[in-house]
């Protein structure tokens, strides 16, 4: 990685430099104040930078060198499924006929796009065991909210207005309770038992006539399969609620079991996780939602359908629909990539993906289990959680070990999540990593655990080899500086 401080692009700006070119205006020009009322014409120019094209490229290349992606190295960030992002996906997503089409073109001029989306829907239905699918939600959290709005509409249609609560395990992603809140529900917590699974007794206690739904990943965020999922679904169904599948952990179960067969009513998927739409530094994602038949009338509109004559189109005639959750038809470009991945792997390949993801996780867990506290003893699925409690007693926190991993060229695991594990370290290797990579990582993490005993300071003060040392987050929050201001500007 580069070591020099990289100036902001604004600090490299010099008057009269440009990095674009435009044809000369080829229509007769009028003074712009004759076309637009003067009050609404800018008085001052926006301070956009003025740089040459090479300066611009050098700037972003320098920034890229100060960034770490899956292409750079191992990225075992739990719950994020940082697998390889296939290059061919990028190629096909950039075809003019897929990237340069307008959402309001006549149906007959976008048959290829609609066919692609329809085929993707059908594949996702098979993978999840659901009856119908919408590709409209833009990301996982957006899918969660969409799914909950569907459940809400279902209860309302049954004049069941008391159902104001959504049950969420204490291990859940923060998006679950937040989505419940945006959908107008109250989040209620169900506890985990000593095995890291939903506590059935506690669930029986909280599930009642006010329950709208239970949201549950499976495997859960501890990487453990909720082996009692059928009983869980029965308890919630008996109380009149619906069971919602958070697809964040779908990478563990493709071809092994399906949410639709486990008793789930609604599912969202994260196409940017399991299905290789790249993470992009935090998005764009895509969060399709699948539902069981009973809930299909409430799906967002429009739905993409295949008509009797074999052509593809939109179904807007959906009176019970929750409405639209996003303009147009979702993050099409990400859906294209996900479909390319599904077509590359095929059914057999997708099954192999989950098997290898689970094998890799269990292997890494085993390799590390001698040196770290393992809070739950059963086999994990695609990810697992360790506790840094042993190292904490030596004065070395999980945060320190995560920072130390940076020195060895790794992106650290997710830390301090799930909340119920002390000094949690959540590791998800994914199936696209080789045994050699896992071995090297295990060796390094074990070495760090030794360092914690023999020379804790080097861990506590890590990282040592990155472009910057630890950053002062308190100052950032206390005195927020959220934008650049030219020091020469005197306002």
């Amino acid at each position, binding site marked *: 990685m580069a070591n020099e401080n990289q100036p902001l692009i604004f600090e490299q700006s010099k008057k009269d430099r440009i990095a674009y070119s435009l044809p000369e205006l080829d*229509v007769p020009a009028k003074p712009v104040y004759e076309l637009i009322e003067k009050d609404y014409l800018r008085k001052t120019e926006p301070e956009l930078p003025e740089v040459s094209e090479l300066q611009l490229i050098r700037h972003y290349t320098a920034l890229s060198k100060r960034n770490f992606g899956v292409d750079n190295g191992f990225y075992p960030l739990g719950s994020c499924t940082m697998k390889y992002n296939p290059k061919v996906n990028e190629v096909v997503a950039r075809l003019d006929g897929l990237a340069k089409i307008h959402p309001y073109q006549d149906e007959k001029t976008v048959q290829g796009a609609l066919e692609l989306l329809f085929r993707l829907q059908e594949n996702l239905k098979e993978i999840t065991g659901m009856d119908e699918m919408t590709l409209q939600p833009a990301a996982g959290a957006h899918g969660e909210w969409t799914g909950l709005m569907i459940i809400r509409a279902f209860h309302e249609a049954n004049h069941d207005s008391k159902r104001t609560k959504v049950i969420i395990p204490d291990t859940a992603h*923060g998006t679950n309770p937040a989505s419940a809140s945006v959908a107008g529900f109250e989040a209620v917590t169900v506890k985990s038992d000593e095995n890291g699974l939903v506590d059935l007794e506690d669930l029986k206690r909280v599930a009642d006539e006010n329950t709208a739904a239970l949201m549950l990943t499976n495997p859960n965020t501890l990487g453990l399969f909720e082996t009692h999922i059928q009983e869980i679904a029965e308890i919630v169904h008996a109380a009149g609620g619906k069971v919602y599948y958070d697809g964040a952990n779908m990478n563990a179960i493709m071809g092994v079991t399906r949410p639709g067969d486990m008793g789930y009513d609604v599912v969202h998927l994260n196409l940017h996780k399991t299905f290789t739409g790249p993470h992009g530094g935090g998005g764009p994602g895509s969060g399709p939602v699948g539902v069981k038949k009973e809930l299909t009338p409430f799906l967002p509109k429009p739905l993409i359908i295949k008509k009797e004559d074999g052509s593809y189109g939109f179904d807007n005639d959906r009176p019970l629909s929750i409405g639209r959750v996003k*303009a147009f038809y979702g993050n099409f470009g990400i859906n294209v990539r996900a479909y390319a991945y599904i077509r590359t792997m095929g059914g057999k390949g997708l099954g192999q993906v989950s098997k290898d993801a689970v094998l890799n996780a269990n292997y890494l867990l085993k390799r590390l289990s001698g040196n770290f506290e393992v809070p739950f003893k059963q086999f994990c699925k695609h990810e697992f959680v360790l506790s840094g409690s042993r190292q904490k007693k030596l004065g070395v926190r999980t945060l320190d070990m995560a920072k130390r991993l940076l020195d060895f060229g790794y992106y650290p695991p997710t830390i301090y999540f799930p909340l119920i594990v002390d000094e949690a370290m959540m590791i998800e290797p994914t199936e696209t990593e080789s045994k050699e990579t896992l071995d090297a990582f295990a060796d390094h993490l074990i070495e760090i655990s030794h360092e914690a005993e023999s020379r804790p300071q080097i861990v506590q003060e890590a990282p040592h080899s990155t472009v910057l040392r630890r950053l002062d987050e308190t100052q950032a929050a206390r005195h927020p500086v959220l934008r650049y201001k030219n020091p020469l500007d005197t306002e």
Partner: protein
Amino acid sequence: MADFRYLPITEDDRKAMLKTIGADSEEVLFSDVPENIRFKGELKTEKALSELELIRFFSELAKKNVSTSDIPSFLGAGVYDHYIPSVVDSVISRGEFYTAYTPYQPEVSQGELQAIFEFQTLICELTGMDAANSSMYDGSTTLAEAALLSSGATHNTKVIVSEAVHPEYRQVLNTYARGRHLEVVTVPVKQGTTDLESLSQAIDGKTACVIVQYPNFFGQIEPLKEIESLTHSVGKIHLIVSSNPLALGLLTPPGALQADIVVGDCQPLGLSESFGGPHCGFFAVTEKLIRKVPGRLVGETVDEEGRRGYVLTLQAREQHIRRDKATSNICSNQALNALASSVAMAAFGKKGIREIAEQNVQKAHYASDLFKSLGIRVETAGSFFNEFVIDCGKSVREINNKLLEKGFIGGYDLGRQSDNLNNKMLVAVTEMRTKTEIDEFAKVLEGIIHG
């Protein structure tokens, strides 16, 4: 498994790993999945394709579409065909950017963090606001989130929205509003802009916000000054302005007109139409609303050695910390597209953004004047950016079919939104359209309308 190029675990690896684990077979690892819910056999997804077959198949699908790179398009209505400098794709194709996750580990994510910090600054410059977040899904959801913010901040539940706001944005707003029990009141349009009299009547003590679009859905410049004074004359009501950021290269920024929240979509700045997504929402606010903003914010700070650096900040607003009390449920946003827009904005610079915006205005007005001179009824009067409304006197769908035969993608059929807009077409003319294309389009269109 040589069958799958993304899967490196060999049979030898598998055996060795299972041995280490102490499991006889892979099956054992799944022994916690009850037999009666086990999926039997292989998933019946479509058949696997080799790389060459895949490219061939996707190229065939692509060929079934008419691309705006094949024939001139006069279609806009929220998504536009614009110049995308080559540097944009070059930058976002770098694996260090597009294969990274959210920059939670700042020491190895300074590149992304600095890029977002620059994005936030660029959005502040264009909108005239104090702070902007790191991006949202798109213009529609951003607008809805702005309404939720206002309702939370003002403790009011009535949301007033102009009918001249993009119809699909309003539909999304309605869906979000239902979740939070907000009442959405729509104010009609009069001669292409928000009817101020109706707006004035709608505003009351229960109002959380007034939402308008600038330039509005019909391309016209809303009288923001008057709208602002009506809005702020009653209590603490927020003025939310949904804007086209390219237009803000030329237009008075809403921040200078006392808007409280400015939202919109960066699609016109370096993002392809992509059949409606992924695009990139932006969310900008005044100083006093910073701690209520949804989504991620990047802030400047220093490292242990006093060197300048960037981190995700004010995270106490966010779902991973505050859970059900968070300002929003958003997690993933549109980071890579925010980067693409940043690159485009940096490439354009202060001169370019104005020049492109001005070419849009000039070309759209040239087209509108030409249409009028050919006897086509142009309904738009007053200031407009790069879109205007014409009355075709007959079905826009049929006209567009004929235009397609002649090699043009026609404008947006306003009748799709409302019956009283039947036969009306919203025509977009960007810097991409040459004079020859505009002249030819006008001639053909005139022939169809009067033919």
